[in-house]
C-alpha cells in the first residue's frame, strides 16, 4: 500500500510539473493565438497602405478581415464581418447571461458606447447560452444596452479562451488589434484606457 501511495504521489507530481511547460510553448499549435500573433504583422502593412492613401474613412480596398462571420441579433437582423468597416474600433464582448461579472460590466460598456460612438467606437455583445432568452431581455433592459447584441456563431470559436467575459478588439480593416484577448470584466475607467490607445 505504501508503494501505491508513493506511485500516486509521483504521478500527480509529474502531471503537475508538466503543467508548467504547457501554454507558452503551445502558441504554435493554438490556432487562436497564432491568428492573433499573425495579424499584428498584417495590420502594420495595412496601416502603412492606409496612411499612404491618406484615408480617414474606411477605404473598402483596405478591408481585409481576418475572419468572417454571419449571425443575427435578437430581432433577426443579419450581421457579418462588414460591420467592422464602419468603425475605427469595434469591441467584441463575449458574455453570458448567467455570468455575474459579464452582466455587471454591461452598463459600463453602454456608457462607453454612448460616450465614444461619435469618435468611431462600436461595441458588439455576443452570447451563446440557449434557453435563457427571458433573462437576456431582463439584463439588456435593466442595463440600458443599445449596442448590438448578437448570437454566437461557430466562426467566433477562434476567440474561445474558455473564459467569460472575453473581449477582443477589432479595427476598421477587420484585424484583431491585441495580441491576446482580454479575459475577465473591467471597470469603465479600465475600458476607457484600453480603447483610448486606438481611438486617438
Amino acid at each position, binding site marked *: *500500500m505504501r508503494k*501505491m501511495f508513493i506511485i500516486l504521489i509521483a504521478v500527480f507530481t509529474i*502531471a*503537475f510539473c508538466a503543467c508548467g511547460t*504547457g501554454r507558452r510553448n503551445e502558441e504554435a499549435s493554438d490556432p487562436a493565438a497564432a491568428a492573433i500573433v499573425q495579424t499584428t504583422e498584417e495590420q502594420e502593412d495595412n496601416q502603412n497602405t492606409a496612411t499612404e492613401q491618406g484615408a480617414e474613412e474606411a477605404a473598402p480596398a483596405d478591408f481585409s478581415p481576418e475572419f468572417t462571420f454571419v449571425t443575427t441579433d435578437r430581432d433577426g437582423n443579419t450581421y457579418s464581418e462588414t460591420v467592422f468597416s464602419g468603425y475605427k474600433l469595434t469591441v467584441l464582448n463575449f458574455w453570458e447571461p*448567467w455570468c455575474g461579472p459579464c452582466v455587471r460590466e454591461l452598463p459600463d460598456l453602454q456608457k462607453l458606447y454612448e460616450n465614444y460612438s461619435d469618435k468611431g467606437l462600436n461595441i458588439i455583445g455576443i452570447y451563446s447560452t440557449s434557453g435563457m432568452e427571458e*433573462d437576456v431581455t431582463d439584463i439588456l433592459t435593466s442595463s440600458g444596452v443599445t449596442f448590438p447584441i448578437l448570437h454566437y456563431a461557430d466562426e467566433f470559436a477562434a476567440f474561445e479562451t474558455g473564459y467569460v467575459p472575453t473581449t477582443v478588439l477589432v479595427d476598421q480593416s477587420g484585424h484583431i488589434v491585441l495580441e491576446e484577448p482580454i*479575459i*475577465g470584466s473591467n471597470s469603465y475607467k479600465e475600458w476607457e484606457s484600453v480603447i483610448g490607445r486606438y481611438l486617438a
Partner: protein
Amino acid sequence: MDNRKRFSIQAVAALLQNANFKGFFSGKIYSGPLKQICVPGLNCYSCPGALGACPLGSLQNSLSALKFRFPYYVVGMLLFFGAFLGRAVCGFLCPFGWIQELIHRIPFFKRNRFRADRPLRNIKYIILALLVIILPLTVKLTPLFCKYLCPAGTSAGILLAVNNTLVSSRLGFLFTWKAVILGIILVASLIIWRPFCKYLCPLGAIYGLFNRFSLIRMHIDPERCISCGSCSAACRMNIDPVREINHAECIRCGDCVRACPCSALNLGMRQKRTQTEISPDHAPFDAR
C-alpha cells in the same frame, strides 16, 4: 473491506473524475457532453482535468439565475447520490476529501479530539443555508460558496493560473482571500482528520441528512456488540457507532468496522448476520 480497498477506490474516483489529462497541459477545461453530468463529490468544473460538473456549483448557478426555475435536474442528482450512498460519497468518491486524508498521513502534530469539535460541526449547515441556498437566490448571478470559500475551486484555479499568464495577471484580493482559506484548510488537515469535511463542507451537510436511510449504510448487530468502545476510539469523525450509528457526521470510512473485535458492524445494503460473511483477515479478539 480493508483500508487499502477504500484508498484504491478514492484514488480511482479522483482519477476518473479528472481524466481529461490533456487539460493539464493545455490549460483549457473539458467542454464536452460529459459536463452535463454532476459528479457526486466536490470537484470543481474549472479543474482542467474535470470531466463532470460539481453538484454544488451547479446548484448555486441554478438558484442564482435571474429568472428562477426550480433546479429539478441538479436536485435530482443530489437526491440520488444521497439516497443511494449518503456520506459514503465523502468517504469513497470525493477527491478533496481524499486530498485531506493524504495530507493527514504526513507526520505532524495530531489533535483530532477537542471540545470545540462538536459545536463547530454546525457551521457547515449555516454555510449550506446561507452561501449555497439563500444568498445565491437573493444576490443573483453569484455562486457565493464557489466564489468566496470553496477550496476545491481554489485548487483548480491554481492549476489554471500556473499555465496561463492571462489568468495569473488578473489575480487580486479575492484570490488571495481564497488562497489563505485553502492554506488554512491544508494546514489544518495535517493536525485534524478531514477538517473541511467536518466543519465547512455544505455538500457533506446535504449528504449527511440522508445517512439514516440511504441504501448503503452502516449496520450494527446488537447481539454481537460487547460495548468495548473500540469502534468509538477508532472513529476519526469522533462518533460513537454504538450510540449514533448512521449519524450525519459518519462518512462511512469503515475504521469502526475494522476495529470491532466481534464483527458487529458492517457497511452495506443489509446487515451481515452469518459467520461466513465475516471477512477472513479479521482476528476475533483484536484487543487494542
